[in-house]
């Protein structure tokens, strides 16, 4: 099954990239705030039960994909 893991910096963790992009958008006249940059990880995970596949993806987050000091993730089974 297709799985998408979205990794975002936790609230309160400084995101200088987001800040720089926000300033860039301001430069074009866009009214925007709280720009945060994250990472999308798409993958195929064997299995047909969405709950089971999601559990596998969660284990991957804990082992490697996410550093809990600074990041949090959400998992979508597509």
């Amino acid at each position, binding site marked *: 099954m297709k799985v998408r893991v979205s990794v975002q910096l936790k609230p309160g*963790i*400084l995101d*200088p*990239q987001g800040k*720089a992009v926000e300033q860039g958008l301001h430069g074009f006249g866009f009214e925007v705030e709280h720009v945060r940059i994250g990472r999308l990880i798409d993958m195929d995970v064997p299995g047909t039960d969405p709950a089971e596949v999601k559990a596998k993806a969660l284990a991957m987050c804990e082992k*490697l*994909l996410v*550093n809990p*000091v*600074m990041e949090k993730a959400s998992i979508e089974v597509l």
Partner: protein
Amino acid sequence: MRVAVPVFPGSNCDHDALHACGTVMGWDTIPVWHQETRLPENTELVFVPGGFSYGDYLRCGALAALAPIMADVKRHADHGGLVLGVCNGFQILCEAHLLPGALLRNESLRFIHADIHLRVERADLPFTCAMQPGEVFQVPIAHAEGNFTLDPADLVDLEARGGVAFRYCSPTGAIGADHVPNGAMNGIAGIVNLRGNVLGMMPHPERAIDPKLGPTGGMGVFRSLAETFTRA
């Protein structure tokens, strides 16, 4: 004194570590490819070098932390063996859970290379015992991700247990945000684990110990290690 220097694809300070420990200090220093599963027999110090292991993919140090040799580095640390991680080596030790915290992108978003000053916060460690508490020394930094970050509660714990080994400071030892090059919390440049045998730091003491190449501000760390092993 036997030193092992793990070498990952993308390590680029491994030769600095080999030069400092081998040529300058005269220690028996052995590079160890990351695919190896065992450190050399009787390794006393593991020096995890700087660089861009695995191209900094995913997060700095995240993939190197999974390399086969790291399991033996953890075993070495669990048995009380010394581990020193510099720059990317520090990032790897955090990702391997040998040290707490994470190194985020510098606040300025820029790669910074500069000579900076550090203040010794712990002078009772195997890595600092030849230095004085509060002593100031100058060493270079060269990194884009050195912004040390920890959950606020864990940061309080780290400070309370004396986990901070080195802090960025002014040339006279003053502490303050003005002297922190990368935005690191509490100006933290180097930390040590609870047991005191694993130290990670962003600055490069190994790049400042050979008088033929320039200043020798980093010598205190190596003198301390030499004393530690003479005493043992």
